[in-house]
């Protein structure tokens, strides 16, 4: 550990990636603007954008704190953080607040937190440290078993809440980290195929609402006013945006309440964006995410050590999966899975988790040295 790798104080900020920071801040701004638009017609939602603004402030502070601390020091505490995260998940299962039938929320001194969001980051941290061990034989099945254990505990705990979507995110994230850590592609494919083959076996274990969501994905008109409603209406909203969109604050789907108002600023924020900003605006949003992911993997490729590399890969994948699943369900490519759009959707826990993750990415970038990707 050389002094050169530790940049005490705020000087490190100067080495941070301006591209990633700009993309992230722009996405935050876009999110707040459309949360304002989505909430302006419901009294209960009209102040959400202000709340999101303060959450964003907290997320930026968290991000800066992580950058200043440096990812090495945090990685050293990965085990402790992981244990805390698992403990809090257990606590949530016991004492969590039930919302829409799922115990995802923990009341923390009057603030509702979703521990699963933070648990995902903690899991990625521990995975990065473990997979970066110099004695690791990525091709050995024992590596896989250990990885599966680390990812599996929070996976099962989140699945028990039950929050299928958040739990499932851990699978591609872990897979991507294993892939970059050197696991054979054939092994990964074997696991993937086995997993897909096992999917039907999980069917009886799904909650009825989850089954309904999957059925509805294949046939939204089976219950157009009930479970198919969100899918139909969000596709209708995005589709009716056309090339240029109806203009900010001009969307009618949301205004008229066809988009269910509680989810419009959260999981379905993109249907508001799609309707009001159109294809052009949506493409710009995708471009912002592309920049963000490119810079996150750039951070990976110039990381100062293997743990940083794997950490960046895991976090980039985490962001990508959230983005892809969220957009995919909004435009009808995927079943409705309650995953928020990173940096854009309303939600404090996830925003802070994302801020911490971005802090880690920026830190990996800042501590690394230029390398071509």
């Amino acid at each position, binding site marked *: 550990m050389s002094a050169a790798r530790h940049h005490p104080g705020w000087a490190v900020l100067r080495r941070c990636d301006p591209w990633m920071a700009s993309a992230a801040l722009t996405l935050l701004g876009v999110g707040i603007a459309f949360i304002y638009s989505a909430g302006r017609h419901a009294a209960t939602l009209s102040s959400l954008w202000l709340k999101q603004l303060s959450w964003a402030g907290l997320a930026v502070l968290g991000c800066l704190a992580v950058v200043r601390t440096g990812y090495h020091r945090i990685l050293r505490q990965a085990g402790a953080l992981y244990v805390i995260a698992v403990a809090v998940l257990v606590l949530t299962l016991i004492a969590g607040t039930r919302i829409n039938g799922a115990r995802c929320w923990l009341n923390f001194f009057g603030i509702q937190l979703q521990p699963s969001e933070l648990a995902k980051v903690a899991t990625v941290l521990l995975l990065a440290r473990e997979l970066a061990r110099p004695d690791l034989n990525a091709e050995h099945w024992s590596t896989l078993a250990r990885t599966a254990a680390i990812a599996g505990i929070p996976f099962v705990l989140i699945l028990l809440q039950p929050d299928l979507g958040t739990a499932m995110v851990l699978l591609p994230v872990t897979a991507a980290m294993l892939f*970059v850590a050197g696991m054979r592609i054939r092994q990964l494919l074997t696991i993937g195929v086995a997993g897909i083959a096992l999917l039907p076996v999980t069917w009886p274990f799904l909650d009825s609402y989850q089954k309904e969501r999957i059925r509805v994905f294949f046939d939204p008109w089976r219950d157009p006013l009930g479970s198919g409603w969100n899918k139909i209406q969000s596709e209708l909203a995005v*589709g009716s945006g056309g090339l240029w969109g109806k203009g900010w604050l001009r969307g009618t789907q949301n205004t008229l309440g066809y988009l269910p108002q509680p989810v419009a600023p959260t999981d379905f924020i993109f249907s508001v964006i799609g309707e009001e900003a159109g294809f052009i605006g949506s493409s710009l949003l995708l471009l912002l995410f592309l920049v963000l992911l490119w810079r996150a993997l750039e951070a990976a490729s110039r990381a100062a050590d293997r743990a940083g590399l794997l950490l960046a890969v895991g976090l980039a994948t985490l962001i990508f999966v959230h983005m892809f699943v969220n957009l995919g369900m909004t435009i009808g490519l995927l079943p409705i899975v309650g995953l928020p759009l990173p940096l854009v959707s309303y939600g404090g826990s996830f925003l802070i988790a994302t801020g911490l993750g971005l802090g880690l990415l920026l830190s990996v970038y800042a501590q690394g040295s230029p390398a071509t990707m």
Partner: protein
Amino acid sequence: MSPRWLPAGWELARIRLLFAAMFVGILVVELALWNLQVARGREFQQDLARQSVRRVRIPGPRGRIFDCRGRPLADNRLSFSIALYLEELRPRSRKGSLLNEVQRTLDEVAAIIGQPPGVTSNDIIAHIRRRLPLPLVAWRDVSEAAVAKWAEMAIRIPGVDLYPEPVRVYPNGHVACHVLGYTRRAELQDVPEEPYHYYLADVEGASGVEKTFDYLLRGQAGVRLVRVNAAGYRYEDVDATEPAPGYDVQLTLDLNLQRAAESALDGVQGAIVVLDPSDGSVLAMASRPAFDPNVFVPAPSLEQWNALCKDPSLPLVNRAVAGAYPPGSTFKPVVAIAALLSRSIGPNTEFSCPGYLTLGNARFRCWDNLGHGTLDMRRAIRFSCNVYFYHVGLELGPQAIAATARAAGLGSKTGIDLEHEVAGFVPDPSWKRRTLRDVWRDGDTCNFAIGQGFLTATPIQMAVVASMFANGGRRVTPHLLKASRAPGAEEFVPVPAPAPQYVWPPSAVKVVQEGMRDVVMAPDGTGRRMFVQGYEFAGKTGTAEYGPKQEGRKRGWMIAFGPLPHPRWAAAMVVEDAVSGGITVAPRLQKFFAAALGAASTSEDRGL
């Protein structure tokens, strides 16, 4: 100090591969967006519009009805209803129920205007289920006092407002009620090519000219497009085609004559029809008992409706066109024409009346037991001698009388623009053989010749007969439509009157007309009680027995026209339960003509 760690080449390659996978993922989303927003954007925009827009049909106000001088007979007035706008009452919390909000607001408003709401909670539930975006009309046509109380107090109550609606009003009450008829809310119609989400029903004519001229009077419905939100409440009005009012209609009725005709019927049951003998314009038509058509606006209460329907005197029936009575002696002028047309009997042919005529075992009596002595046609009409006409009838035979009667329009509908007109009946031997399986006897001919027996006629038919004697034998078609006016237009466009046909030679008519003049003008004429000082009128009275003979109930008739030599009016009047035509009906017609002449002279003086 270890050398700086650098990722291996394969690691960088795998990172690039991962990035490529993410890039493909984003590309997939981008392509899906293109498909959704650009390729199928228009389709979704249409779907969106369709799901949030409701078509509401707004009926147009009815056209108005005027008399021949432009005085309103049926008008529209603005009525104020108090309506609840449900989108403003929607409960704030999930638990609140709209029904409770509505009930609470209704109670509040009821307390202010001091009138219980006109809707039950079932009505409210039905409205919420079926027509949520529309205002719920809770009080229809509230009084001015209630409107004033409302204006003072209730502006503060959210979601409640006055709702103006045009409403039919008949400013003259029962006057001409049978001609005007009444309106009702139209049944819902399926209009498949223009589906409406909400169909506000038209007001349609249910009887009278409101019904026959409904095609003119009925307003052109407009369409309002209402954007509703997901909960089904009204969000905004998107677009509208304004409803257009219907055509205004001008009738041939003259309100002054109509009022005079109405008062001629005061206190009796019966009917009167007054025509312009030159073209068949109906100047007045009244029937008693009458009703107030305003009772039907917007709808009669159940008690009112039952009272009108179950009344044994049938106030809803227009006796002028739907009442067929034996015309009695008013038929004699027609028989006289038949005689003159036959050429076997001339104006100077005389018969002697000893007070009766014996046919086999039966004795047919004259109304005057003393007899009229020897009479020619003119005097026979003047005294209404039955025996004279028995002889004429027997001479002519029933076919000739029936043919002349039919030529005058008896036995068939006149074609007046009113429904429920009856044709009356003109008998003949073949009919009697076919229907009653009996031969036509001379007695039947005698009865026929004095307008009794099987023969029946309506007042409007007899008014046409009177017109023929007034205008020299031309048969007119009675009609009510004088002109119509398109919505927004200044001038009425006249409707041409149906052309009259020459039926009887004027020379024959002249002979009978003289007899009819004597009826009124001679001091011993049967219709002398119709005499109007200073004017020459002609007429013929009639009395027909009906019901069981021992009750001795009679219907009194009179047909009349004048003033001579150029008659402006031809009238027929019937009174159920009269002493006789001469005693009961003639003075009433006298009153009518006197009033008509007074009204005519005053309006002429004023240059109207």
